């Protein structure tokens, strides 16, 4: 690697650039993931299974996409750990009396924690639906999803994970534009609103699934169907 790239990547601003690019790529994945999930609403369990089958039919392409996604995720998380560690070290002695100046948010202050919760959630999520032996019938992934998300424990785990994701995104998306230096007197306020709306839409969209499954499972067990 040319030395200038190494120097750029190890600088504080370069690290933030990489965080922003990888973060926005992951947001792109989340959008696609959510749109795919909507097949459960439009086509029921069969519709969802058809969508899953179409993805599986991509074969090598899907595998390649997953490898890239995994790499992006690993870069994002490992760099985040480094940034958190460096930032802790940058203030070796804590303030005894601390007040916020009013510009930071609960979301911005808890990025490390929400990120960690999302990471743990993601491990659970992948074990739930990407390990064939646990899913049982991979051709009927939709049923497994509805069953897992419809159980009180499953729904709680997913809602906690999605809440953490929502909080993370609340700071992350608009912050990424700042890190990339995208700033304009007219466009930035609109972009900020758009970023917050996208974060909210993703959180609400994903949260709707455990709630939907919980309600439909509840209805099924009550015999109402």
């Amino acid at each position, binding site marked *: 690697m040319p030395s*200038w790239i190494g*120097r*750029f990547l190890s*600088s*504080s*601003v*370069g*690290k*933030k*650039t990489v965080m922003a690019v990888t973060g926005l790529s992951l947001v792109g994945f989340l959008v696609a993931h959510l749109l795919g999930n909507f097949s459960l609403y439009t086509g029921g369990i069969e519709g969802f299974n058809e969508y899953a089958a179409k993805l599986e039919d991509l074969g090598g392409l899907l595998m390649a996409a997953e490898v890239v996604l995994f790499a992006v995720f690993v870069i994002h998380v490992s760099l985040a750990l480094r*940034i958190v560690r*460096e*930032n802790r*070290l*940058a*203030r*070796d*002695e*804590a*303030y*005894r*009396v*601390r*007040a*916020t*100046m*009013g*510009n*930071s*948010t609960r979301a*911005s*202050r808890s*990025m490390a924690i929400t990120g960690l919760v999302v990471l743990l959630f993601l491990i659970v999520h992948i074990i739930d639906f990407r390990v064939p032996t646990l899913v049982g019938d991979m051709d009927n992934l939709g049923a497994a999803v509805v069953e897992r998300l419809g159980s009180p424990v499953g729904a709680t785990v997913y809602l906690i994970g999605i809440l953490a994701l929502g909080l993370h995104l609340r*700071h992350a998306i608009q*912050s990424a534009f*700042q*890190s*990339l*230096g*995208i*700033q304009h*007197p007219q466009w*930035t306020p609109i972009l900020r609103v758009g970023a917050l709306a996208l974060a909210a839409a993703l959180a609400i969209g994903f949260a709707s699934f455990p709630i939907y499954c919980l309600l439909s499972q509840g209805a099924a067990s009550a015999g109402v169907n």
Partner: protein
Amino acid sequence: MSTSTTGDLSLTVHVWCQAGPDQPGEFVTTALTISPDTSFLEMLDCLNEQRMAGGLEPIAFDHDCREGICGMCSLVIDGKPHGPEQETTTCQLHMRTFNDGDDIWVEPFRAKGFPILRDLVVDRGAFDRIQQAGGYVSVNTGSAPDAHAVPVPKPAAEEAFDAAACIGCGACVAACPNASAMLFVAAKVSQFALLPQGAPERDARARSMVEAMDAEGFGNCTNHFECAAACPKAIDVTHIARLNREFLRSSLRPRG
């Protein structure tokens, strides 16, 4: 101490005392009666007089112009750099901001890049070293250039001037949850990035200054924007976005 008059404030002031670098520190509590018309630094002067009258050493704190332009005063007062007032340096803060009976907590700016020398005095030499890395323009000496020889658009002049208002006090570092110095560096880079006079060194400036900043042990910016709220000169985070752009541009240019 003068005898108390009507309207004076009775305060309990807790000030950080530390004998030297890497020494353990602690809060020292002093009861004080003070006129609301005194400035915060005058209050500390009175507190020190009271200490010295009692045979104690005065508490060390930084100050110079006492009119809000030199950037020498510091302090974190009740958890906020330069105290509770917006766009105000500690020297321009007055005791009328506080209420009778208040407890006031005074700490030094805390950051690895600003090591404590004694009590409330920290070494902000890191800012000088960052500045020396690129916060300048090369000007040939000679007769003064004609005022209108170099055209500068009015909006660019205004924005460069906003950035140039930075007094280098370090409140941005003190306020940042990550002890990042980005707002300071952003102001210094922004000030020149917008002006034709800054163009000759533009390619290297952001890169050199960010490298110098990182070498001092400041944290990474995570866009909390606490710095802008703490800045006594109201320097905006748009300058940080510009620094990010300038750094990207500067990194992509060949090194001379």
